């Protein structure tokens, strides 16, 4: 197992390097020049050239990339051409918001999707199964931005139950760290009022983001459980008098979720990507919107840094997925 983890970590380095190279080349092939935007609307060509020189944008591409790699080795992502702040600071401020939203959405998707899938499989070809299959197709097909607006209209505007946007209400002050995850930090600081405020603000964005995931997890769980229910050991255990729900929720489910766990790993990546839309609609101060602004303004240090960070997260999630597989299925542990 340790050798397995070590191998996977070793493979991460060339993966991330390749990712950086591809992203760097792609960024530099578009004509957008951050120096022009930085120089401002009344700038002269001489001003623009001076700024280009200041930021090293007039150096050969390989020199720019080499210099950037040297900075990365020292964990220095550089200064954002536009915010004027260290990119690391901007990411540190925003990434926890995206991760908190994504993780809560994922947990929600698992907590709802898995039971729904089991129910659908157990009631195979009866009305709960039909409802589930129809709803899951709809859940995958529904556009995230449409769902977000509908939830806003219903729960924030009509009913007034939940906030329309943002991560905290006006006037609420987030506790200072240590994790950047508001829910955790509030509990650690004992600020239960702010905790509830943060939780209320999280409900609609998380519900929106998790909707497609619920459908996906439900379908895969249903398929896995259905297949497992046909196996001989299930028949044996039923004959042996095992309680129905204990049999399903402990023995059948454990043997059914390998594919579902894989999907959850892939889903995490999809949720991080999908968070861009949700963050935009709900004014969630995460990394998605920050990245979009960086792309529009050709702030290439931000684009590269975000690519690297998200790449690391993907690799970590994939590794975790494989570990969970090994945990569920002992036959995989020797690999």
């Amino acid at each position, binding site marked *: 197992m340790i050798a397995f983890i070590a191998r996977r970590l070793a493979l991460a380095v060339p993966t991330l390097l390749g990712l950086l190279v591809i992203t760097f080349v792609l960024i530099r092939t578009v004509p957008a020049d951050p120096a022009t935007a930085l120089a401002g609307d009344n700038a002269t060509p*001489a001003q623009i050239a001076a700024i280009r020189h200041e930021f090293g944008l007039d150096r050969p591409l390989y020199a720019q990339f080499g210099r950037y790699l040297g900075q990365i080795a020292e964990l220095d992502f550089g200064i954002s051409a536009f915010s004027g702040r260290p990119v690391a600071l901007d990411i540190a401020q925003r990434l926890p918001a995206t991760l908190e939203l994504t993780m809560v959405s994922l947990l929600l998707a698992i907590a709802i999707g898995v039971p729904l899938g089991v129910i659908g499989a157990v009631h195979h070809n009866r009305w709960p199964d039909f409802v589930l299959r129809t709803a899951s197709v709809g859940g995958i097909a529904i556009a995230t931005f449409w769902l977000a607006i509908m939830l806003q209209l219903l729960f924030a505007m009509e009913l007034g139950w939940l906030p329309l946007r943002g991560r905290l209400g006006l006037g609420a002050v987030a506790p200072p760290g240590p994790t950047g995850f508001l829910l955790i930090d509030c509990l650690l600081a004992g600020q239960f009022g702010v905790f509830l405020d943060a939780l209320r603000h999280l409900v609609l964005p998380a519900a929106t983001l998790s909707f497609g995931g619920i459908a996906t997890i439900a379908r895969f769980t249903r398929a896995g459980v259905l297949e497992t229910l046909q196996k001989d050991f299930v028949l044996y255990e039923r004959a042996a008098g095992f309680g129905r729900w204990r049999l399903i929720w402990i023995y059948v489910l454990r043997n059914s979720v390998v594919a579902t766990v894989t999907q959850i790993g892939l889903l995490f990546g999809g949720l991080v990507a999908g968070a861009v839309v949700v963050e935009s609609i709900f004014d969630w*101060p995460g990394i998605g919107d920050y990245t979009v602004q960086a792309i529009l303004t050709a702030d290439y240090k931000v684009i590269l840094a975000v690519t690297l960070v998200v790449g690391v997260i993907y690799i970590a999630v994939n590794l975790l997925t494989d570990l969970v597989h090994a945990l569920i299925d002992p036959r995989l542990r020797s690999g």
Partner: protein
Amino acid sequence: MEITRREAGALTLGALLTLAVRARAAEPDVLVSGDNLPQNLDPHQIFDVPMQGYAVNTYDTLYRYEGNPPELQPWLAAGHTPAPDGMSWEFALRPGSLFHDGSPITAEDVVYSFRRVLALGKAPAGAFLPVLKPDGVTATGPLTVRFQLAHPYAPFLAAMPLVSIVNPRVLRQHEKDNDWGAAWLASNEAGSGAYVLKPETYMPLQHVDLARFDRHFMGWKDNPRPLDGVAYRPTKETSTRLLALLQGSLDWTDSYLPVDDVTQVAASKIAHVQKDEDMRTFLIRMNNSKPPFDNINARKGFAHAFDYHGFITDILKGYAVRDPTPMPNTLWGFPKDVAGYEYDPAKAKMYFERARQEGAPLHRPIQIHIQEALDQTTQAAQLYQSTLAPLGITLKIVNDTWANLTTNTAHPETTPDMWVHWVSTYFVDPENWAGQMYDSQFGGTWKASSWYKNPKVDELLRQARATVGQEARAPLYEAAIRLIVADSPDIWIYNTVDLRGVNNRVAGFRFCPVGSGTEVRWIHLAA
């Protein structure tokens, strides 16, 4: 008392539901603004419309624009004296003005501010670099500043509001590697304006909170209940912005309320639409260096082929003012007798035929680049496509971004055939429009991206730039604009009407095209 998990869950849900109330601003005298924020907070690094909206509240300038049409008012300066030849300008500061740290504003602070702008060489410096050297700014007394220009520059006074006066005592404490405190000021503030930044809550493009500065030099007698603070909470998504306004959690939107939303806001009980004619022109550029746009008959054909009235009336629902010239029609120097071009397919056809006979390649597809994030550029391009098609012109719409376009327009060969944009009010002088758009010396900048060249126009514009006095300059600009319109280098469509959704509790709103009415010192909130 033991509580089961089920009971705990029910209690939590109940708490959530009982806390559900219709959202309002948490504090009664804090205005929640949906305006966009600048990329960073240093007014010497960034100068665009969002920065104008922020800096007008946190910084002061020697002169400031107020009212609509905007009038230049002495602000930190009590007055100025230009030399007859326009080569030097002397400004007398108002005594008793304070920075936010309580230190008095002196002539040396003004000198430092201008030298900082020149040294950083970014956005606001563009108007000054060609005419002002760092040692040309000097303090001739504790409260008098002298500017010695390299050559006469009549828009100099009009450009004064571009430079915010910053506190050197604060900035010098935070300088790093001779950066003039740029890294620090990007997330902080060193001003004297009516409101002070709370840096601890700042998040770029997301949150800015301001608190009132009681000792502002203007005093507060003109506003019985000034705002205690301003909370900038820009909202990216149009639908969310509208809902927030209608819900009451936002006191005003930005000034680009979509025309489709105007009826809804106007019909609501909680908000109204603030409509003000701006000085922001909307136009379609033509690359005059590239065939067929190097042919005047082709350009006139294109000018007659756009349905101006239909665009303004049907698509914009009348919320724009037809403006057939490059300049806002509310500005001096605008020739009232110029009719411009109107939608006339017959004339367009006639001019296209002449152009074809002269060899203009009107058979090739023409690309028009739009700014994907801005709906009106798409709408204008699509309308244009539909009116050009019957005339045998194929218009291809290309999605693009501002960053790409401003880079590509640096060279004639990479400038698109056509592209769509606005020209905002950076300073209130014909130089901001006609001067910087059609003097060929500005080729390579996005404003001059039509690559138009007319030596007579160059001569008039340069003479106007060097002549002191509006009465002498106005006829020069009028003559230049008549020539420019006759040459038809671009397609000028409208002057903007700002549409801003405003909560009915907001009172005292004063619109000025510079800043789009975001100066909040006049605002109070009705109880």
